[in-house]
C-alpha cells in the first residue's frame, strides 16, 4: 500500500508557480519548460492555479520584505506533503539583491527548500533536471519510510 502511494506521489507532481519579486527572466524560462516543446506532462507534471491543489511550490526571485507574508501564506495553504523548489540564482541566495534594504535574501531564509536550481535564468532543461532531482529525493524519502 505504501509502495503504491509512493509510486503515485512520484508519478504526479503538480506545480504552483510563485514570483517573489524577480525580474521575470526565470518565469519566462519556467513557462517555456511547460510548453509543448519540452512537454513536462510526459512525467505527469501539471501547472495548477490553486495552492490547495499543488505539491511543489516553484519560487522564482529574491524574497522581498513585502512579499514574505504572501509567500508564507501560499506555502501554508498547500496540503502536506509539500516541497519547495528555488529557481534561479535570486531565489537560491538573493544574488545581486542580497544586501538590498528591502530584500531578505534567498527563499531558504523563509521556507525549507528541497532543491536549488542555479542560473540567471536557468534553462528549461535545467529546471526539468531540478524537478527530476526532487522526484528522486521524494522516492528516497519514501523508501526510507
Amino acid at each position: 500500500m505504501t509502495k503504491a502511494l509512493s509510486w503515485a506521489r512520484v508519478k504526479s507532481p503538480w506545480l504552483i508557480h510563485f514570483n517573489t519579486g524577480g525580474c521575470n527572466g526565470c518565469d519566462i524560462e519556467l513557462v517555456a519548460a511547460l510548453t509543448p516543446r519540452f512537454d513536462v506532462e510526459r512525467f505527469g507534471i501539471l501547472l495548477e492555479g490553486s495552492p490547495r491543489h499543488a505539491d511543489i511550490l516553484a519560487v522564482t526571485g529574491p524574497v522581498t520584505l513585502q512579499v514574505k507574508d504572501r509567500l508564507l501564506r501560499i506555502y501554508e495553504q498547500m496540503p502536506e506533503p509539500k516541497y519547495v523548489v528555488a529557481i534561479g540564482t535570486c531565489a537560491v541566495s538573493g544574488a545581486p539583491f542580497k544586501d538590498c534594504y528591502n530584500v531578505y535574501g534567498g527563499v531558504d531564509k523563509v521556507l525549507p527548500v528541497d532543491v536549488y536550481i542555479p542560473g540567471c535564468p536557468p534553462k528549461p532543461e535545467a529546471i526539468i533536471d531540478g524537478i527530476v532531482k526532487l522526484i528522486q529525493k521524494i522516492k528516497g524519502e519514501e523508501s526510507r519510510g
Partner: protein
Amino acid sequence: MTEHLLTLALRVLIYPGALFLIFLAFLYEWVDRKFLARVQNRYGPLYTGPSGILQPFADFLKLLSKEDIIPAAADRLLFNLTPIAYSTLPLVALLVIPIDGGEAVLAFDGDLIFVMFLLTLIVVTVFLAGLGSMSRFSIIGGVRAALQMLGYEIPMGLALIGPAVAAGSLSITDIVRWQSTGLRWLILLQPLGFAILVCCMLAELEYVPFDIPEAETEIVAGWRTEFSGRKLALIRLGKDLEVVLASALLASLYLGGAQPLYSLPGSITFLIKTVLVVLLFTFLRGVFARFRIDQMVSGMWRYMVPLAILQVILVEFGVGR
C-alpha cells in the same frame, strides 16, 4: 428472489455498474489528455504505465493520500457533502443508460427526464460547492456555473427531447432499441439536434469554450479553488464520470448506443462510440478559446434556443423520424 437480488447487486456494483464505470472514467481521462496533447503537438502522459495509461489513477491515488484542509471560513456541511454528491450523481445517471447491449440496469419509463434532472442537480451541487467554500474565487466560480446553466439548459432539454419524440418514448433503452431497428441513427435524421447537444454538453462539462466557471487565468481554479486532498480527488473523479455520462448520453440518443453491429456485441460498439464522442469533445476543446460569460449566455439564447426549437418543430412535422 435472492438470485435476482444478487444479479442486480452485481450489475449495480461491478458490471456495468460502479466499478466498470469508474474504470471507464479513468480510461477516458487518459484518452482525453493524450489526444489533447496530440492536438497541441506534444506527447502527453508517457511514463506512468504503458504510454501513461495509469496517469489518472496515479493522480487520484496521490490526491487521496494528501492532507485534507478545511478552510476556517468554509461551511463544513456543504464543504464535506458536495464532493461526494458531485461524484455520485453522474454514477447514478449512468445506471439508466444501456451499456451492455440489453436493458439498462435501472431502466424505467421516463428515465430521460430523470437524467435531465440529474444533469441540473450536478450544476446545483457545483454552485453549492462554490458557496460553501466561502472564498471569493469559489463564489465567483459557483455563480458563473449557475449563470451558465441558465444559458444552456433550455437548448439541452430540447435537444434531448428530439430523439424522444422521434422514437415515441421517454425511456433511453427504448430510444436505443428504436434506433437499432433498421440502423436509423438519429444523428442522420436530426443532425442539428446532435450539434446542439454537443455544444450544451461542452458547457455542462465545463470544457474549453465554456470553461468559464473554472477559468484558471481569471479566478484561480473557480469553484474548486479551496478543495484539496480527498475532496479534490472525488471532484476529479466526478468530472471524469461526467465525461462518461455525456459521451454515453450522446452515443445512446444520437449514435444508436449499445446495439450489436455485424459481429460486434453491444458493449463493444458502445465503447467505440463513446470514445469517438470523447475524441470529438477533446478536439473542440483543443481548437477553441474561452468565451466571456455574457457572450456565452446571450449566444446560447440568441442562436441555440431558436435552432433547438426549429429542430423540435421539424421533428413534429415528420422530418427526421
